[in-house]
């Protein structure tokens, strides 16, 4: 098929529909509002529900309720809204409620600049839940990624029963571009799994082989419990320290031990001593910068991360192995570079960041690569 002319936010909405999303609730906020607009155009006509919450906390609550009733659900906001989502995010993490959360980042802190881009929420998304348990964060580079990674986000939310974030950016979300979605390789759609035997169903029962509990919906033929309190396999409050500890470790390991199954990235390897690592819209400038370098006679490698959390440490180590020097470029004052420094502790890791509402330019990145 031929390309369409889409902004990243429209591509997110279309990806959600392809993934089987049936419920969306959101509160208007630039630069995320056009996801709500698009979902309202797409969902009700196809038997789904799209509603405007009275605030961000409510929007998350509607989604969590609908998800527990068995519907794939998504919400979208920007940094100020993520702050308000926080307690509900913790609920989704601890109580294993599948949901896709799109954070269209804008320049912070606080109200900041509604129409300026940034990648300032990268650590906030990881650590914005009480308890500090891991979450999945995917970062799109362009409209095509917005479509594909949204589908992956739903698949991951269903597979691992957890919140999955799409860390978008105003500069991707509200930039329109020609994109042929039909030419993309769309993954198989995954749905949460019901237990083989629902008669003996326990809402948080797991086994040696399976770290994620099976799912039955609230409203089905078997009464199902869900709770935000510390719970045992039966979904009732527990004070048993052993049971509590095992559950916390399970919630941690179910994502961190599985990251290799969902490590998304792009790579341009080069015979060079320098590797540039970037993500999001900045990766587009980094790609042009490495082109400039090549044309100037100096090849450098490029690694574009699309899975940010859990940190795909093994992949990063493998890809960085042949390089002496690593340059991390991101649209903030230094967030993900801390992970790179931790993972590549034996390498020279340099950083360039910018937080002024402007795109980092290829020329600036080339200067950093050239050591200027």
């Amino acid at each position, binding site marked *: 098929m031929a390309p369409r002319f889409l902004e990243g936010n429209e591509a997110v909405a279309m990806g959600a529909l392809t993934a089987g999303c049936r419920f969306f609730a959101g509160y208007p906020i630039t630069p995320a509002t056009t996801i709500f607009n698009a979902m309202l155009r797409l969902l009700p006509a196809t038997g789904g529900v799209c509603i405007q919450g009275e605030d961000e906390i409510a929007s998350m609550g509607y989604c969590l*309720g609908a998800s527990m009733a068995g519907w794939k659900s998504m919400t979208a906001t920007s940094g100020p809204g993520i702050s308000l989502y926080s307690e509900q995010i913790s609920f989704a993490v601890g109580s294993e409620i599948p949901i896709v959360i799109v954070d269209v980042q804008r320049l912070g802190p606080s109200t900041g600049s509604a129409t300026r881009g940034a990648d300032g929420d990268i650590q906030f998304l990881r650590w914005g839940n009480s308890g500090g348990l891991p979450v999945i964060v995917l970062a799109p580079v362009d409209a095509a990624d917005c479509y594909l990674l949204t589908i992956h986000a739903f698949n991951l939310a269903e597979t691992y029963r957890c919140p999955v974030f799409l860390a978008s950016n105003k500069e991707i979300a509200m930039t329109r571009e020609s994109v042929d979605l039909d030419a993309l390789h769309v993954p198989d759609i995954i749905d949460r799994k019901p237990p083989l035997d629902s008669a003996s169903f326990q809402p948080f029962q797991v086994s040696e082989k399976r770290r994620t509990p099976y799912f039955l919906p609230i409203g089905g033929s078997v009464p199902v419990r869900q709770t*935000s309190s510390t719970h045992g396999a039966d979904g009732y409050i527990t004070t048993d320290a052993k049971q509590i500890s095992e559950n916390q470790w399970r919630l941690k390991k179910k994502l961190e031990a599985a990251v290799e199954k969902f490590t998304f990235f792009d790579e341009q390897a080069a015979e060079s001593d320098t590797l540039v690592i970037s993500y999001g819209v900045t990766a587009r400038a980094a790609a042009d910068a490495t082109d400039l370098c090549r044309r100037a006679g100096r090849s450098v490698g490029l690694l574009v991360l699309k899975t940010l959390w859990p940190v795909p440490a093994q992949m990063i180590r493998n890809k960085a192995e042949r390089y002496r020097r690593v340059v991390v470029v991101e649209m903030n004052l230094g967030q993900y570079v801390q992970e790179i420094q931790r993972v590549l502790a034996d390498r020279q890791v340099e950083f360039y960041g910018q937080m002024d509402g402007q795109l980092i*330019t290829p020329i600036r990145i080339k200067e950093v690569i050239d050591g200027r």
Partner: protein
Amino acid sequence: MAASLLNKDRPPVFCPGCSHDRITGALDQAFQKLGLAGSQVAIVSDIGCSGLFDTFFHTHALHGLHGRALTYAAGIKLARPGLQVVVTMGDGGQGIGGAHLLAACRRNLNLTMLVLNNFNFGMTGGQFSVTTPSEARVGSGFLNQLEKPLDICQVARSAGAAYVKRCSSYQSGLADDIAEAIAFEGFSLVDIWGICPGRYSRQNPLTPKIIAESMAAMPPADGVVEENRRPEYGSVYRKTAKGQKTVHPPHVEQQFQPPGTGRHEILLLGNAGQRIITAGEILCLAGMTAGLQATQKNEYNITVLRGPSVCEVILSSDRISFTGLGQPDVVIVLSREGVDRRKSLFAELHPQSLVLKATDTQIPDCSGAVHLLDFKKMGVKPADRALASLAVLAKAGKIIDIEMLKAALWLRFTDKVQDSVLGLVERVGSNN
């Protein structure tokens, strides 16, 4: 009568004399009166003593964050319209979740909300809530004396709730009242007054008789609120949704060969009302009709018809990676407000950069090749300036041509508007 839905493995564990005990029993009786099985009911609760309710029943249950129970309940109900969804919240939850209460009343989704109103935060030590009387002695020192308590029933009624009932935990027929509220088609709220012996009534004289007398002195709230009666939200939503159409943005087929190769950056500087953003979109669509890649970024104020409007377009025969502009190949200058946003750009332009400038708009010293557009002479209205500029650009034939531009207008517009824009492009393209 159906069987009791009480969870025999988990009997209620309230403090001795707690009115919540009575409400637990009344709710179970109400379920029985309505003939409901456990799988037909979801109890949604939040934090505090009212948040224990979901564990006492063998039904679907969701126990969530303080004050947010109504939001989960709404999500469940929208996805499962056949399920009876009952929300239990305390007077504490009414305060922290006030916005959700108002939204639920206005929306009229078929939920039943039981407010377990015992005038204080029992679980955290008896602090004051939104319903604590000013004269009560509670765990918040003198603070409650400075605030006026809220009448949840009056709030719900004025917010549009179609069913509002004030009850005492001790009145006979409480189970019937709850059953009636559950059976009501729409949002129903039952404000159930009770005694918290653990925290509240130790310092404040409160008996079933005092509750009855206090309630009698309140404005009536006795069930259906006629002026708020209307169709239930979910049923109206589903009916309305059936008439909606899903519309995807169109595919843009390649029809032409592009006039040139490489990357071209075009900057439009104007003000709101000149249809700058629309022109940018048309330019991109025009490029796509010749198989070019396209990106568009816009910058504008929140005001409509006032303030600057800036649009950055890239058309390229290769993949577009970086979406920012360097030194644009073309700058279309249509008003001062747009120029002010990009003042520093003009001195840095390449000599071969084309500047299409309205004669009535001034620009700083500029190293590009300036081509003047006298819109008055051309007979072009302010709202058509941007489109007319595209016609001039297309006539030059280097980045887009007239056929590509016309094809874009065919894609973007229909009917009379299409005739009008095609006419404009025809006229400007042949005269200028």
